């Protein structure tokens, strides 16, 4: 009988949104009145140039969140040549129209924000150029510009071209670039093959003071194919004409500031150091804030010796000229793939009785760096502490790393015995045995040469970071940052490589015994035949480098969490496990009968902040008590972290939510998808006459 009802549900509710409220009594009372208000807008990827992802709307609140229902949904299957499952955009909302990129070809679309109807679509078929790109699929979205009359939508294609469209029609602006397009592989202070060069971008272009700022992203650098990869310079373009206004060399040229931070003239040959994250801007100060990734080699720095500016630095640039105003390096000579993954949040906070123009930068290592955004000086002291030196031949090691004294880290950093799984003494004992096979230690424990019995260093947070590309949100009323992070370790082992056709690096990221695989772009053509068969023996217990015991994670939960950080004090205000406990934990035979608090789930998530709530969907699928796969959109009291409601979604949050008021109804729109559920944009609102 149980099976019958579950199956019946499964067959009939694929697209229906079931709603699970947490407080039915209060809900019933709250439905009568829906205070509306004037239409609002959402003009930037994260609401504003400050990247707060904040809206003061409160029609949807703690009392009625559980009543949310699907207003409309927009399936992106028909965009591009095939379905997409990694749908990351946050739409913009201007004058009742939503603008976003969508589908496997990254088309740009305009949607009626009240009904979900497609109003226009722009498609650019870039052929092999797109297939070669290191950043495929829909990307994070698009950007908006207006001078009060003309309205433009700008986005970067998969093949790394900047397109400017008329917001009314979706037609390219003939005054911009060549027929509305600027080829970003040109005028880049380096010679690139337009078809094959390793550069693309998921992030939205940032528009401030009539300047469009565009970053760059490259293939992951665990096993870099070449030493002299594309340099990830950042550029500013005139929003009207597409003409390049300036370029900032994230890897300085000889004679430029920062060149001397590189030893042996390594800057001349190093590549990457792109800005693949979102950026923020303060038009009043005339600054754009640029989070830079590592130069080539995510865990190997032998060809970027020295602190190597502007690797893993936050740089403030003059919007008009691209001149560096200040910079702050968050990791010196990083060996842990701690690319700064998201935009800093610009916030005006009280410090010693006065208001300071600050910024708060979430990071992969789960420090929130809080700086004065005018000067780049820390709000609270950031101290340099000595860190351990590693054993990788040819590597260069920084002696110290910066540690903020406030606020405290918002997720686990480094790994010790206390961090290991502890559901049962047996599991803890197994975990203790497992970590004996690895090097463990505090944050910034260096990667180690991989060999049997010491396969590598366990890095916590892992290389995907605690926080990644979605970044956080900010409540300007309570001066609080809310940020999601996951607690997931990685193994960083370094193995020698003598095959230059695989990698020009003599040491690469890997596990002893497994042969080195060439690392190509997300799409770069492979060589066909493998050079050597893989050495791994799957199916015979966890292979080296695989941190799982009996199907359970090595670290104890939470696996995913949301933290509120009070910037008026520099303290953590609250923290909750975000996400229902995953299926494998809830159903694990070794855990039967144990009472396990909600563990949260690991992923990459961006929360939304409103007048009273912090709203965020879950990462990954779980199977609920009705036997239905899906994920919940959850709402927390922004003051206490107490959960106020949850709404079923057929798939996990894949792009960060946004909200708006339109015709007196508040909407929450979120991109979902993954697993076997293809990309979909879902709009929620409260019940009522349409």
């Amino acid at each position, binding site marked *: 009988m149980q099976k019958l009802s579950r199956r019946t549900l499964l067959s009939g509710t694929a697209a229906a949104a079931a709603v699970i409220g947490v407080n039915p009594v209060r809900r019933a009372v709250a439905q009568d009145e829906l205070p509306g208000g004037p239409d609002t807008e959402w003009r930037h990827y994260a609401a504003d140039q400050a990247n707060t992802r904040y809206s003061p709307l409160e029609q949807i609140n703690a009392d009625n969140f559980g009543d949310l229902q699907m207003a409309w949904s927009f399936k992106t299957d028909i965009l591009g040549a095939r379905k997409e499952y990694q749908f990351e955009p946050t739409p913009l909302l201007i004058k009742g129209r939503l603008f976003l990129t969508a589908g*496997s070809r990254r088309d740009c679309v305009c949607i009626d924000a009240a009904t979900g109807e497609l109003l226009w679509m722009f498609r650019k078929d870039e052929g092999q150029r797109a297939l070669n790109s290191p950043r495929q699929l829909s990307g994070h979205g698009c950007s908006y510009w207006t001078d009060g009359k003309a309205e433009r939508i700008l986005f970067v294609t998969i093949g790394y071209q900047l397109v400017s469209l008329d917001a009314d029609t979706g037609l390219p602006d003939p005054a911009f670039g060549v027929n509305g397009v600027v080829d970003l592989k040109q005028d880049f202070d380096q010679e690139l093959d337009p078809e094959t060069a390793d550069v693309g971008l998921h992030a939205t272009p940032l528009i401030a003071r009539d300047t469009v700022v565009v970053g760059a992203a490259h293939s992951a650098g665990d096993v870099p194919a070449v030493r002299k990869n594309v340099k990830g310079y950042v550029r500013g373009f005139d929003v009207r004409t597409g003409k390049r206004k300036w370029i900032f060399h994230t890897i300085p040229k000889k004679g430029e500031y920062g060149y001397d931070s590189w030893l042996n003239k390594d800057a001349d040959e190093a590549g990457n150091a792109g800005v693949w994250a979102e950026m923020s801007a303060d038009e009043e100060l005339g600054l754009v804030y640029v989070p830079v990734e590592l130069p080539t080699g995510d865990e190997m720095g032998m060809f970027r010796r020295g602190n190597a500016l502007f690797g893993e630095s936050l740089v403030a640039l003059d919007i008009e000229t691209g001149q560096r105003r200040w910079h702050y390096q968050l990791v010196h000579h990083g060996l842990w793939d701690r690319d700064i993954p998201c935009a800093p949040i610009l916030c005006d906070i009280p410090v010693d009785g006065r208001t300071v123009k600050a910024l708060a930068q979430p990071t992969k290592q789960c420090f929130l760096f809080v700086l004065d955004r005018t000067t780049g000086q820390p709000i609270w002291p950031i101290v340099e502490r000595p860190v351990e030196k590693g054993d990788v031949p040819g590597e260069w090691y920084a002696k110290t790393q910066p540690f903020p004294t406030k606020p405290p880290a918002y997720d686990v950093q480094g790994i010790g015995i206390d961090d290991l799984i502890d559901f049962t003494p047996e599991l803890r004992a197994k975990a203790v045995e497992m970590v004996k096979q690895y090097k463990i230690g505090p944050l910034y424990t260096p990667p180690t040469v991989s060999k049997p019995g010491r396969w590598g260093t366990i890095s916590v947070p892992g290389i995907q970071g605690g926080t990644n590309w979605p970044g956080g949100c900010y409540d300007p009323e309570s001066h609080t940052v809310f940020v999601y992070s996951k607690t997931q370790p990685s193994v960083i082992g370094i193995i020698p490589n003598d095959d230059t056709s695989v990698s020009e690096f003599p040491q690469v990221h890997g596990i002893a015994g497994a042969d080195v695989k060439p690392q190509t772009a997300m799409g770069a053509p492979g060589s066909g035949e493998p050079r050597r068969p893989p050495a791994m023996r*799957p199916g015979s217990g966890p292979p080296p480098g695989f941190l799982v015991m009996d199907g359970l994670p090595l670290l104890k939960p939470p696996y995913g969490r949301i933290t509120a950080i009070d910037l008026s004090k520099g303290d953590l205000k609250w923290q909750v496990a975000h996400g229902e406990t995953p299926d494998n934990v809830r159903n694990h035979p070794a855990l039967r009968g144990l009472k396990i608090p909600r563990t949260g789930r690991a992923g990459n998530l961006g929360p939304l902040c409103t007048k009273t709530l912090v709203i965020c969907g879950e990462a990954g699928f779980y199977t609920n008590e009705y036997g239905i796969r899906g994920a919940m959109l959850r709402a927390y009291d922004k003051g206490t972290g107490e959960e106020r409601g949850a709404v079923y979604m057929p798939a996990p949050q894949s792009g960060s939510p946004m909200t708006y008021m339109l015709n007196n109804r508040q909407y929450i729109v979120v991109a979902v998808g993954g697993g076997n559920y293809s990309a979909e944009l879902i709009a929620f609102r409260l019940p009522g006459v349409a």
Partner: protein
Amino acid sequence: MRRMSGWIAGAALLGAGGAVVTRAQAPDRHVWTGVYTKEQAERGKTAYAENCAACHGETLAGIDVAPALVGPTFLNNWNNTSAGDLFARIQMTMPLNAPGSLGGRKVADIEAFMFEANGFPAGDLPLPPNAALMPNVRIVAQKPEPAKADGPCKCN
């Protein structure tokens, strides 16, 4: 219970557009019952190295921009779907530089290799080269306990 599964398989096939006559009693299969062969996984290992390892890693552990294809996060994400669902996703979208280029047999081989890496046992019947032939092969992260005769399924 058996009648139910047959109905589901038939419905899924019809949904895919095929007027296919199914067995009246399709076996209730899941990944712990041996749904691929050892030889198939061996072929899949080579095919994986050629087509998948550059992004998903030699050990299927994933890298910065591509998710792991082994372990709890992967299994939770696919728990209570079918081998057909996973097959369809691979065939339609992978590899990213040439989606749709892998033939059905190769996709089935790669999926068999992934099942092996995730600890599911091999059996006598290979995974079929067509998603429509395996909507009844459930992906169940946790090995189900031995079923009592006609008892409710405990697969979540």
